[in-house]
Protein backbone atom coordinates (compact mmCIF):
# COMPACT_ATOMS: atom_id res chain seq x y z
CA UNK A 1 0.00 0.00 0.00
CA UNK A 2 1.18 3.48 -0.76
CA UNK A 3 2.03 6.01 1.91
CA UNK A 4 -0.36 8.83 2.75
CA UNK A 5 1.40 11.94 4.04
CA UNK A 6 -0.32 13.74 6.90
CA UNK A 7 0.99 17.19 7.85
CA UNK A 8 0.66 17.29 11.63
CA UNK A 9 -1.01 20.35 13.11
CA UNK A 10 0.69 21.37 16.34
CA UNK A 11 1.36 24.46 18.40
CA UNK A 12 4.96 24.53 19.66
CA UNK A 13 5.09 20.76 19.67
CA UNK A 14 1.71 20.15 21.23
CA UNK A 15 -0.24 18.01 18.76
CA UNK A 16 -3.71 19.35 18.02
CA UNK A 17 -6.86 17.26 17.95
CA UNK A 18 -7.33 17.26 14.13
CA UNK A 19 -4.02 15.40 13.71
CA UNK A 20 -5.52 12.20 15.16
CA UNK A 21 -8.62 12.67 12.98
CA UNK A 22 -6.48 13.03 9.87
CA UNK A 23 -4.35 9.98 10.68
CA UNK A 24 -7.62 8.05 11.04
CA UNK A 25 -8.75 9.28 7.62
CA UNK A 26 -5.35 8.48 6.09
CA UNK A 27 -5.81 4.79 6.93
CA UNK A 28 -8.75 4.67 4.49
CA UNK A 29 -6.36 5.64 1.67
CA UNK A 30 -3.09 3.85 2.50
CA UNK A 31 -0.36 3.74 5.14
CA UNK A 32 -0.24 6.92 7.21
CA UNK A 33 3.08 8.77 7.42
CA UNK A 34 3.10 11.74 9.75
CA UNK A 35 5.08 14.80 8.68
CA UNK A 36 6.08 16.81 11.73
CA UNK A 37 7.67 20.20 11.06
CA UNK A 38 9.07 22.11 14.03
CA UNK A 39 10.20 21.34 17.56
CA UNK A 40 8.72 18.47 19.58
CA UNK A 41 8.59 15.55 17.12
CA UNK A 42 10.27 13.15 19.55
CA UNK A 43 7.67 13.92 22.21
CA UNK A 44 4.79 13.60 19.76
CA UNK A 45 6.06 10.30 18.35
CA UNK A 46 4.10 7.94 20.62
CA UNK A 47 0.83 9.76 20.16
CA UNK A 48 1.21 9.77 16.37
CA UNK A 49 1.98 6.03 16.34
CA UNK A 50 -1.02 5.39 18.57
CA UNK A 51 -3.27 6.88 15.90
CA UNK A 52 -1.72 4.79 13.17
CA UNK A 53 1.40 6.57 11.91
CA UNK A 54 3.69 3.92 10.45
CA UNK A 55 6.38 6.46 9.67
CA UNK A 56 7.17 9.83 11.13
CA UNK A 57 9.18 12.29 9.08
CA UNK A 58 10.53 15.06 11.28
CA UNK A 59 11.99 18.38 10.20
CA UNK A 60 13.48 20.26 13.14
CA UNK A 61 15.35 22.99 11.21
CA UNK A 62 13.96 26.18 12.80
CA UNK A 63 14.06 27.93 9.40
CA UNK A 64 11.02 25.86 8.42
CA UNK A 65 8.76 27.85 10.73
CA UNK A 66 10.56 31.21 10.66
CA UNK A 67 9.15 32.02 7.25
CA UNK A 68 5.56 32.08 6.09
CA UNK A 69 4.32 28.69 4.73
CA UNK A 70 6.69 28.38 1.73
CA UNK A 71 9.36 26.24 3.49
CA UNK A 72 6.70 23.79 4.68
CA UNK A 73 5.50 23.42 1.08
CA UNK A 74 9.10 22.62 0.08
CA UNK A 75 9.29 19.87 2.75
CA UNK A 76 6.13 18.27 1.39
CA UNK A 77 7.26 18.68 -2.23
CA UNK A 78 10.49 16.83 -1.43
CA UNK A 79 8.54 14.02 0.26
CA UNK A 80 6.05 13.78 -2.61
CA UNK A 81 8.93 13.38 -5.07
CA UNK A 82 10.69 10.74 -2.92
CA UNK A 83 7.75 8.72 -1.61
CA UNK A 84 5.14 9.00 -4.39
CA UNK A 85 2.33 9.03 -1.81
CA UNK A 86 -1.27 8.13 -2.61
CA UNK A 87 -2.38 11.47 -1.15
CA UNK A 88 -1.25 14.36 1.04
CA UNK A 89 -3.56 15.43 3.89
CA UNK A 90 -3.10 18.95 5.30
CA UNK A 91 -5.12 20.78 7.98
CA UNK A 92 -7.67 23.07 6.32
CA UNK A 93 -6.79 26.27 8.14
CA UNK A 94 -5.37 29.45 6.58
CA UNK A 95 -1.75 28.31 6.68
CA UNK A 96 -2.56 24.73 5.71
CA UNK A 97 -4.53 25.77 2.64
CA UNK A 98 -1.65 28.03 1.55
CA UNK A 99 0.87 25.20 2.02
CA UNK A 100 -1.44 23.03 -0.11
CA UNK A 101 -1.69 25.80 -2.71
CA UNK A 102 2.07 26.07 -3.13
CA UNK A 103 2.49 22.29 -3.13
CA UNK A 104 -0.18 22.00 -5.85
CA UNK A 105 1.74 24.39 -8.11
CA UNK A 106 5.09 22.69 -7.40
CA UNK A 107 3.78 19.19 -8.11
CA UNK A 108 1.13 20.13 -10.72
CA UNK A 109 -1.46 18.38 -8.62
CA UNK A 110 -5.12 18.94 -7.86
CA UNK A 111 -6.00 20.63 -4.58
CA UNK A 112 -9.23 20.22 -2.61
CA UNK A 113 -9.80 22.37 0.48
CA UNK A 114 -12.37 22.67 3.28
CA UNK A 115 -13.04 18.96 3.04
CA UNK A 116 -15.36 17.45 5.67
CA UNK A 117 -15.09 13.79 4.64
CA UNK A 118 -12.69 11.64 2.64
CA UNK A 119 -13.45 8.15 1.40
CA UNK A 120 -11.44 5.68 -0.67
CA UNK A 121 -10.68 6.95 -4.14
CA UNK A 122 -10.04 9.45 -2.66
CA UNK A 123 -13.43 11.08 -3.01
CA UNK A 124 -13.98 14.14 -0.84
CA UNK A 125 -17.06 15.89 0.51
CA UNK A 126 -17.24 19.67 0.84
CA UNK A 127 -19.98 21.98 1.98
CA UNK A 128 -20.37 25.02 -0.29
CA UNK A 129 -22.46 28.16 -0.89
CA UNK A 130 -22.98 28.84 2.80
CA UNK A 131 -23.72 25.19 3.48
CA UNK A 132 -26.60 25.03 1.01
CA UNK A 133 -24.88 22.42 -1.20
CA UNK A 134 -22.82 19.33 -0.58
CA UNK A 135 -20.16 18.64 -3.22
CA UNK A 136 -18.30 15.41 -3.95
CA UNK A 137 -15.01 15.84 -5.75
CA UNK A 138 -11.82 14.07 -6.71
CA UNK A 139 -8.36 14.96 -7.92
CA UNK A 140 -7.76 14.07 -11.56
CA UNK A 141 -4.10 15.14 -11.94
CA UNK A 142 -0.98 14.52 -9.94
CA UNK A 143 -0.99 13.63 -6.24
CA UNK A 144 -4.28 14.37 -4.47
CA UNK A 145 -3.67 17.24 -2.03
CA UNK A 146 -6.54 17.39 0.41
CA UNK A 147 -7.06 20.01 3.12
CA UNK A 148 -9.24 18.49 5.83
CA UNK A 149 -11.33 20.47 8.31
CA UNK A 150 -11.41 19.66 12.01
CA UNK A 151 -14.17 17.27 13.20
CA UNK A 152 -14.16 15.38 9.87
CA UNK A 153 -13.70 11.99 11.53
CA UNK A 154 -13.82 10.41 14.96
CA UNK A 155 -10.21 9.59 15.89
CA UNK A 156 -9.62 5.84 16.12
CA UNK A 157 -6.54 4.34 17.67
CA UNK A 158 -4.43 1.88 15.69
CA UNK A 159 -0.95 0.66 16.39
CA UNK A 160 1.32 2.26 13.82
CA UNK A 161 4.98 1.31 13.71
CA UNK A 162 5.96 4.92 14.29
CA UNK A 163 9.43 4.54 12.76
CA UNK A 164 11.19 7.85 13.10
CA UNK A 165 13.20 9.60 10.42
CA UNK A 166 14.79 13.01 10.70
CA UNK A 167 14.75 14.75 7.30
CA UNK A 168 17.21 17.32 6.16
CA UNK A 169 15.74 19.84 3.76
CA UNK A 170 17.57 22.81 2.29
CA UNK A 171 15.20 25.67 1.70
CA UNK A 172 15.38 27.88 -1.39
CA UNK A 173 16.02 31.60 -1.01
CA UNK A 174 12.57 32.40 -2.35
CA UNK A 175 10.99 30.23 0.37
CA UNK A 176 12.76 32.40 2.92
CA UNK A 177 11.64 35.70 1.39
CA UNK A 178 8.78 36.28 3.78
CA UNK A 179 10.07 36.37 7.35
CA UNK A 180 8.06 36.01 10.55
CA UNK A 181 9.75 38.67 12.70
CA UNK A 182 7.52 38.45 15.77
CA UNK A 183 4.85 36.17 17.15
CA UNK A 184 2.51 37.06 19.96
CA UNK A 185 0.69 33.99 21.30
CA UNK A 186 -3.03 34.41 21.72
CA UNK A 187 -4.17 34.61 25.33
CA UNK A 188 -5.31 31.17 26.42
CA UNK A 189 -9.00 31.25 27.27
CA UNK A 190 -8.97 27.76 28.74
CA UNK A 191 -11.80 26.91 26.35
CA UNK A 192 -11.62 24.51 23.43
CA UNK A 193 -10.55 25.90 20.07
CA UNK A 194 -13.48 27.24 18.05
CA UNK A 195 -13.14 25.06 14.94
CA UNK A 196 -12.38 21.91 16.96
CA UNK A 197 -15.03 22.23 19.68
CA UNK A 198 -17.95 19.79 19.99
CA UNK A 199 -20.13 22.62 21.30
CA UNK A 200 -19.99 26.30 20.33
CA UNK A 201 -21.92 29.10 22.04
CA UNK A 202 -21.93 32.39 20.09
CA UNK A 203 -23.08 35.88 20.91
CA UNK A 204 -24.16 38.67 18.59
CA UNK A 205 -25.61 42.15 18.51
CA UNK A 206 -28.14 41.14 21.17
CA UNK A 207 -25.41 40.95 23.81
CA UNK A 208 -25.00 44.71 23.60
CA UNK A 209 -21.29 44.06 24.18
CA UNK A 210 -21.72 42.04 27.38
CA UNK A 211 -20.55 38.50 26.61
CA UNK A 212 -20.54 37.33 30.24
CA UNK A 213 -23.79 35.30 30.03
CA UNK A 214 -22.58 33.75 26.75
CA UNK A 215 -19.23 32.81 28.30
CA UNK A 216 -20.80 31.46 31.49
CA UNK A 217 -23.19 29.25 29.50
CA UNK A 218 -20.32 28.07 27.27
CA UNK A 219 -18.27 27.16 30.33
CA UNK A 220 -21.14 25.17 31.85
CA UNK A 221 -21.15 23.06 28.66
CA UNK A 222 -17.37 22.96 28.13
CA UNK A 223 -17.94 24.86 24.89
CA UNK A 224 -15.97 27.29 22.74
CA UNK A 225 -17.20 30.88 22.44
CA UNK A 226 -17.92 32.44 19.05
CA UNK A 227 -19.20 35.81 17.88
CA UNK A 228 -21.16 37.21 14.96
CA UNK A 229 -19.62 39.71 12.57
CA UNK A 230 -21.73 42.48 14.10
CA UNK A 231 -20.25 41.76 17.53
CA UNK A 232 -16.71 41.63 16.13
CA UNK A 233 -17.14 44.80 14.06
CA UNK A 234 -18.39 46.56 17.20
CA UNK A 235 -15.15 45.56 18.90
CA UNK A 236 -16.89 43.39 21.51
CA UNK A 237 -15.05 40.18 20.68
CA UNK A 238 -11.84 39.37 18.76
CA UNK A 239 -11.95 38.63 15.06
CA UNK A 240 -10.35 35.23 15.67
CA UNK A 241 -13.67 34.22 17.30
CA UNK A 242 -15.85 35.34 14.39
CA UNK A 243 -18.14 32.66 13.02
CA UNK A 244 -19.27 33.28 9.46
CA UNK A 245 -18.29 33.63 5.86
CA UNK A 246 -15.24 35.80 6.56
CA UNK A 247 -14.43 34.18 9.88
CA UNK A 248 -14.44 30.58 11.02
CA UNK A 249 -16.70 27.91 9.55
CA UNK A 250 -17.70 25.59 12.36
CA UNK A 251 -19.61 22.34 12.30
CA UNK A 252 -19.98 21.24 15.94
CA UNK A 253 -22.42 18.74 17.43
CA UNK A 254 -24.26 21.66 19.05
CA UNK A 255 -24.31 25.33 18.07
CA UNK A 256 -26.00 27.89 20.30
CA UNK A 257 -26.69 31.35 18.79
CA UNK A 258 -27.52 33.98 21.40
CA UNK A 259 -28.69 37.38 20.23
CA UNK A 260 -27.74 36.61 16.62
CA UNK A 261 -30.29 37.37 13.90
CA UNK A 262 -28.88 34.84 11.43
CA UNK A 263 -27.82 36.80 8.34
CA UNK A 264 -26.40 34.77 5.42
CA UNK A 265 -22.91 35.94 6.43
CA UNK A 266 -23.34 34.15 9.77
CA UNK A 267 -25.23 31.13 8.45
CA UNK A 268 -22.34 30.42 6.09
CA UNK A 269 -20.23 29.68 9.15
CA UNK A 270 -22.54 27.45 11.19
CA UNK A 271 -25.31 26.05 8.99
CA UNK A 272 -23.85 22.53 8.91
CA UNK A 273 -23.83 22.16 12.71
CA UNK A 274 -25.59 18.96 13.79
CA UNK A 275 -27.95 20.60 16.28
CA UNK A 276 -28.75 24.32 16.35
CA UNK A 277 -30.27 26.26 19.23
CA UNK A 278 -31.08 29.98 19.27
CA UNK A 279 -32.13 32.55 21.82
CA UNK A 280 -33.41 35.83 20.41
CA UNK A 281 -35.82 38.55 21.49
CA UNK A 282 -37.15 38.89 17.95
CA UNK A 283 -39.44 36.00 17.03
CA UNK A 284 -39.03 36.98 13.36
CA UNK A 285 -35.23 36.53 13.42
CA UNK A 286 -34.18 34.34 10.47
CA UNK A 287 -31.98 32.22 12.75
CA UNK A 288 -35.18 30.53 14.00
CA UNK A 289 -35.68 28.98 10.52
CA UNK A 290 -32.62 26.81 11.20
CA UNK A 291 -33.09 25.77 14.78
CA UNK A 292 -33.87 22.47 16.39
CA UNK A 293 -34.83 24.38 19.50
CA UNK A 294 -35.44 28.10 19.90
CA UNK A 295 -36.30 30.40 22.76
CA UNK A 296 -37.94 33.73 22.02
CA UNK A 297 -36.70 35.77 24.95
CA UNK A 298 -34.00 37.91 26.49
CA UNK A 299 -30.63 36.17 26.53
CA UNK A 300 -29.79 38.00 29.77
CA UNK A 301 -32.49 36.04 31.62
CA UNK A 302 -32.65 32.83 29.54
CA UNK A 303 -28.91 32.04 29.48
CA UNK A 304 -28.22 32.50 33.23
CA UNK A 305 -31.23 30.31 34.06
CA UNK A 306 -30.07 27.64 31.60
CA UNK A 307 -26.52 27.89 33.00
CA UNK A 308 -27.73 27.30 36.56
CA UNK A 309 -29.91 24.36 35.49
CA UNK A 310 -27.05 22.76 33.53
CA UNK A 311 -24.63 23.23 36.45
CA UNK A 312 -27.16 21.56 38.78
CA UNK A 313 -27.20 18.38 36.68
Amino acid at each position, binding site marked *: MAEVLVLIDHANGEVKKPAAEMLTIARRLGEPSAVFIGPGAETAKDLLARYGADKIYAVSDPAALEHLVAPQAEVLAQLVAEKQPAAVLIPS*NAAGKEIGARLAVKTESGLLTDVVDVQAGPVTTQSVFAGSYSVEAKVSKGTPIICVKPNSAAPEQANGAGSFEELSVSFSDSAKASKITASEPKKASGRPELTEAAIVVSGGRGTGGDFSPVEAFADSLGAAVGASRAAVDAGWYPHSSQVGQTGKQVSPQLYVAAGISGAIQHRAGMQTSKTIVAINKDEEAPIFELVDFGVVGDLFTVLPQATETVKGK
Partner: protein
Amino acid sequence: MNIVVCVKHVPDAQSDRGFNEDNTTDREGVDGLLSELDEYAVEQALQIVEAGEGEVTVLTIGPAAAAEAVKKSLQMGADKGVHICDDAIAGSDALATSLVLAEAIKKIGTPDIVLTGMASTDGTMGVVPAMLAERLGLPQVTYASELSVDGGVATMRRDGDTASETIQASLPALISVTDQINEPRYPSFKGIMAAKKKPVEEWTLADLGVDAGQVGLANAATAVVATTKRPPREQGTIVTDEGDGGTKLAEFLTTNKFV
Protein backbone atom coordinates in the same frame (compact mmCIF):
# COMPACT_ATOMS: atom_id res chain seq x y z
CA MET B 1 4.57 52.34 -6.66
CA ASN B 2 2.64 50.29 -9.20
CA ILE B 3 0.04 47.88 -7.94
CA VAL B 4 -1.97 45.18 -9.69
CA VAL B 5 -5.14 44.17 -7.82
CA CYS B 6 -6.70 40.83 -8.77
CA VAL B 7 -10.48 40.88 -8.42
CA LYS B 8 -13.29 38.42 -9.08
CA HIS B 9 -16.87 38.80 -10.24
CA VAL B 10 -18.96 36.37 -8.16
CA PRO B 11 -22.59 35.32 -7.79
CA ASP B 12 -24.26 37.43 -5.10
CA ALA B 13 -24.22 35.49 -1.82
CA GLN B 14 -27.66 36.92 -1.03
CA SER B 15 -29.15 35.22 -4.09
CA ASP B 16 -30.00 31.57 -4.66
CA ARG B 17 -26.62 30.24 -5.79
CA GLY B 18 -26.33 26.90 -7.57
CA PHE B 19 -24.65 24.76 -10.20
CA ASN B 20 -24.95 24.11 -13.94
CA GLU B 21 -25.46 20.61 -15.34
CA ASP B 22 -21.70 20.15 -15.74
CA ASN B 23 -21.28 20.96 -12.01
CA THR B 24 -19.69 24.34 -12.69
CA THR B 25 -20.91 27.35 -10.73
CA ASP B 26 -24.01 28.96 -12.23
CA ARG B 27 -22.83 32.46 -13.16
CA GLU B 28 -25.72 33.36 -15.44
CA GLY B 29 -28.86 32.60 -13.48
CA VAL B 30 -27.95 34.84 -10.55
CA ASP B 31 -26.88 38.44 -10.12
CA GLY B 32 -23.14 38.96 -9.97
CA LEU B 33 -20.99 41.57 -8.28
CA LEU B 34 -17.42 42.41 -7.29
CA SER B 35 -16.52 39.90 -4.56
CA GLU B 36 -16.97 41.80 -1.30
CA LEU B 37 -13.58 40.65 -0.02
CA ASP B 38 -11.85 42.16 -3.08
CA GLU B 39 -13.13 45.62 -2.18
CA TYR B 40 -10.67 45.60 0.73
CA ALA B 41 -7.81 44.88 -1.69
CA VAL B 42 -8.85 47.70 -4.05
CA GLU B 43 -9.18 50.09 -1.09
CA GLN B 44 -5.75 49.12 0.25
CA ALA B 45 -4.14 49.65 -3.16
CA LEU B 46 -5.74 53.09 -3.44
CA GLN B 47 -4.54 54.06 0.04
CA ILE B 48 -0.96 53.00 -0.73
CA VAL B 49 -0.85 54.91 -4.01
CA GLU B 50 -2.57 57.96 -2.54
CA ALA B 51 0.09 58.12 0.18
CA GLY B 52 2.76 58.41 -2.51
CA GLU B 53 2.49 57.99 -6.21
CA GLY B 54 1.88 55.28 -8.73
CA GLU B 55 -0.84 53.49 -10.56
CA VAL B 56 -3.44 50.87 -9.68
CA THR B 57 -4.32 48.31 -12.36
CA VAL B 58 -7.30 46.02 -11.75
CA LEU B 59 -7.09 42.54 -13.24
CA THR B 60 -9.91 40.05 -13.59
CA ILE B 61 -10.68 36.78 -15.37
CA GLY B 62 -14.23 35.92 -16.30
CA PRO B 63 -17.02 35.97 -18.83
CA ALA B 64 -18.36 39.24 -20.30
CA ALA B 65 -20.29 40.07 -17.11
CA ALA B 66 -17.03 40.14 -15.13
CA ALA B 67 -16.39 43.57 -16.67
CA GLU B 68 -18.70 44.82 -13.90
CA ALA B 69 -16.09 43.93 -11.27
CA VAL B 70 -13.46 45.97 -13.14
CA LYS B 71 -15.90 48.86 -13.55
CA LYS B 72 -16.70 48.98 -9.83
CA SER B 73 -12.97 49.00 -9.01
CA LEU B 74 -12.37 51.84 -11.49
CA GLN B 75 -15.27 53.74 -9.94
CA MET B 76 -13.64 53.36 -6.53
CA GLY B 77 -10.52 54.97 -8.01
CA ALA B 78 -8.29 52.40 -9.75
CA ASP B 79 -6.56 53.81 -12.85
CA LYS B 80 -7.01 51.11 -15.45
CA GLY B 81 -8.33 47.63 -16.00
CA VAL B 82 -7.43 44.37 -17.68
CA HIS B 83 -10.13 41.77 -18.36
CA ILE B 84 -9.08 38.28 -19.46
CA CYS B 85 -12.06 36.89 -21.33
CA ASP B 86 -11.89 33.60 -23.20
CA ASP B 87 -14.51 30.84 -23.46
CA ALA B 88 -11.78 28.22 -23.02
CA ILE B 89 -11.24 29.39 -19.41
CA ALA B 90 -14.74 28.42 -18.23
CA GLY B 91 -14.67 25.80 -15.47
CA SER B 92 -10.99 26.35 -14.62
CA ASP B 93 -9.78 25.31 -11.17
CA ALA B 94 -7.56 27.38 -8.87
CA LEU B 95 -4.37 26.04 -10.49
CA ALA B 96 -5.41 27.23 -13.96
CA THR B 97 -6.80 30.50 -12.60
CA SER B 98 -3.48 31.27 -10.93
CA LEU B 99 -1.62 30.35 -14.12
CA VAL B 100 -3.64 32.78 -16.24
CA LEU B 101 -3.38 35.53 -13.61
CA ALA B 102 0.40 35.03 -13.34
CA GLU B 103 0.85 35.29 -17.11
CA ALA B 104 -1.32 38.41 -17.23
CA ILE B 105 0.68 40.03 -14.43
CA LYS B 106 3.91 39.29 -16.32
CA LYS B 107 2.43 40.87 -19.46
CA ILE B 108 1.34 43.96 -17.51
CA GLY B 109 4.91 44.11 -16.18
CA THR B 110 5.50 42.74 -12.68
CA PRO B 111 4.47 45.57 -10.35
CA ASP B 112 5.82 46.51 -6.92
CA ILE B 113 2.81 44.87 -5.31
CA VAL B 114 0.27 42.29 -6.42
CA LEU B 115 -2.73 42.72 -4.12
CA THR B 116 -5.66 40.36 -3.60
CA GLY B 117 -8.51 39.76 -1.18
CA MET B 118 -8.20 36.87 1.29
CA ALA B 119 -10.57 34.60 -0.68
CA SER B 120 -13.43 34.84 -3.15
CA THR B 121 -16.92 34.71 -1.69
CA ASP B 122 -17.99 31.93 -4.09
CA GLY B 123 -15.18 29.37 -4.15
CA THR B 124 -13.88 30.53 -0.73
CA MET B 125 -10.71 28.41 -0.99
CA GLY B 126 -8.32 31.31 -0.37
CA VAL B 127 -5.50 29.56 -2.25
CA VAL B 128 -5.00 31.69 -5.36
CA PRO B 129 -2.82 34.31 -3.55
CA ALA B 130 -0.33 31.65 -2.38
CA MET B 131 -0.38 30.01 -5.83
CA LEU B 132 0.37 33.37 -7.44
CA ALA B 133 3.29 33.98 -5.07
CA GLU B 134 4.65 30.54 -5.95
CA ARG B 135 4.23 31.05 -9.69
CA LEU B 136 5.66 34.57 -9.75
CA GLY B 137 8.46 33.80 -7.28
CA LEU B 138 7.32 36.70 -5.10
CA PRO B 139 7.45 36.82 -1.30
CA GLN B 140 4.06 35.85 0.10
CA VAL B 141 2.54 38.33 2.55
CA THR B 142 -0.99 37.00 3.03
CA TYR B 143 -3.98 37.53 5.35
CA ALA B 144 -2.81 41.00 6.33
CA SER B 145 -5.04 42.59 8.95
CA GLU B 146 -2.64 45.51 9.24
CA LEU B 147 -0.15 46.56 6.60
CA SER B 148 2.52 49.19 6.17
CA VAL B 149 4.70 49.66 3.12
CA ASP B 150 7.80 51.71 3.74
CA GLY B 151 11.22 51.93 2.11
CA GLY B 152 10.56 49.01 -0.19
CA VAL B 153 9.53 46.72 2.68
CA ALA B 154 6.05 45.44 3.47
CA THR B 155 5.27 44.71 7.13
CA MET B 156 1.99 43.13 8.15
CA ARG B 157 0.09 41.54 11.00
CA ARG B 158 -1.38 38.10 10.42
CA ASP B 159 -3.83 36.84 13.03
CA GLY B 160 -3.66 33.07 13.30
CA ASP B 161 -5.51 30.63 15.52
CA THR B 162 -2.74 30.42 18.08
CA ALA B 163 -0.73 33.61 17.57
CA SER B 164 -0.60 37.03 15.96
CA GLU B 165 2.44 37.19 13.73
CA THR B 166 4.39 40.09 12.27
CA ILE B 167 5.65 39.30 8.78
CA GLN B 168 8.12 41.24 6.71
CA ALA B 169 9.19 41.02 3.07
CA SER B 170 10.93 43.16 0.49
CA LEU B 171 9.02 44.40 -2.52
CA PRO B 172 8.04 43.28 -5.06
CA ALA B 173 5.67 41.09 -3.07
CA LEU B 174 2.29 39.43 -3.22
CA ILE B 175 -0.02 40.73 -0.52
CA SER B 176 -3.51 39.54 0.43
CA VAL B 177 -5.66 41.49 2.87
CA THR B 178 -8.50 40.50 5.20
CA ASP B 179 -11.76 42.32 5.84
CA GLN B 180 -10.23 43.72 9.05
CA ILE B 181 -7.74 45.97 7.27
CA ASN B 182 -9.82 48.94 6.16
CA GLU B 183 -13.26 50.29 5.35
CA PRO B 184 -13.73 50.19 1.55
CA ARG B 185 -14.98 53.46 0.08
CA TYR B 186 -18.16 53.80 -1.95
CA PRO B 187 -17.70 55.12 -5.49
CA SER B 188 -18.41 58.85 -5.55
CA PHE B 189 -20.43 60.47 -8.34
CA LYS B 190 -17.17 61.96 -9.61
CA GLY B 191 -15.57 58.52 -9.46
CA ILE B 192 -18.42 56.95 -11.40
CA MET B 193 -18.15 59.58 -14.14
CA ALA B 194 -14.35 59.37 -14.28
CA ALA B 195 -14.43 55.57 -14.57
CA LYS B 196 -16.15 55.84 -17.96
CA LYS B 197 -12.99 57.32 -19.45
CA LYS B 198 -10.53 54.91 -17.86
CA PRO B 199 -8.86 52.36 -20.17
CA VAL B 200 -9.84 48.69 -19.96
CA GLU B 201 -7.96 46.16 -22.06
CA GLU B 202 -9.52 42.85 -23.03
CA TRP B 203 -7.11 39.97 -23.50
CA THR B 204 -7.60 36.39 -24.60
CA LEU B 205 -5.45 33.35 -23.81
CA ALA B 206 -3.65 33.88 -27.12
CA ASP B 207 -2.59 37.36 -25.96
CA LEU B 208 -0.99 35.73 -22.92
CA GLY B 209 0.57 32.81 -24.76
CA VAL B 210 -1.38 30.35 -22.63
CA ASP B 211 -2.45 27.15 -24.35
CA ALA B 212 -6.17 26.33 -24.07
CA GLY B 213 -5.13 22.78 -23.10
CA GLN B 214 -3.81 24.14 -19.78
CA VAL B 215 -7.12 25.62 -18.63
CA GLY B 216 -10.87 25.03 -18.52
CA LEU B 217 -13.11 22.37 -17.09
CA ALA B 218 -11.75 19.48 -19.18
CA ASN B 219 -8.16 20.16 -18.11
CA ALA B 220 -8.79 20.91 -14.44
CA ALA B 221 -6.72 18.97 -11.89
CA THR B 222 -9.83 18.48 -9.76
CA ALA B 223 -13.26 17.26 -10.81
CA VAL B 224 -16.60 17.68 -9.12
CA VAL B 225 -18.34 14.31 -9.16
CA ALA B 226 -21.70 15.38 -7.73
CA THR B 227 -23.47 18.38 -6.25
CA THR B 228 -26.42 17.92 -3.94
CA LYS B 229 -28.66 20.64 -2.60
CA ARG B 230 -29.03 20.16 1.11
CA PRO B 231 -32.62 19.84 2.22
CA PRO B 232 -33.56 22.97 4.16
CA ARG B 233 -33.31 22.46 7.91
CA GLU B 234 -36.64 21.74 9.43
CA GLN B 235 -37.66 24.13 12.11
CA GLY B 236 -37.85 22.47 15.48
CA THR B 237 -39.56 23.60 18.64
CA ILE B 238 -39.80 27.31 19.39
CA VAL B 239 -40.87 28.37 22.86
CA THR B 240 -41.53 31.85 24.16
CA ASP B 241 -39.83 32.65 27.45
CA GLU B 242 -42.40 32.99 30.20
CA GLY B 243 -39.92 32.84 33.03
CA ASP B 244 -38.92 29.24 32.30
CA GLY B 245 -37.17 29.62 28.89
CA GLY B 246 -33.75 28.83 30.34
CA THR B 247 -35.03 25.74 32.12
CA LYS B 248 -36.70 24.50 28.93
CA LEU B 249 -33.47 25.10 27.02
CA ALA B 250 -31.52 23.08 29.59
CA GLU B 251 -34.13 20.30 29.36
CA PHE B 252 -33.72 20.16 25.58
CA LEU B 253 -29.95 19.86 25.96
CA THR B 254 -30.31 17.14 28.58
CA THR B 255 -32.79 15.14 26.50
CA ASN B 256 -30.35 15.31 23.58
CA LYS B 257 -27.43 14.26 25.79
CA PHE B 258 -25.41 17.47 25.52
CA VAL B 259 -25.40 17.75 29.30
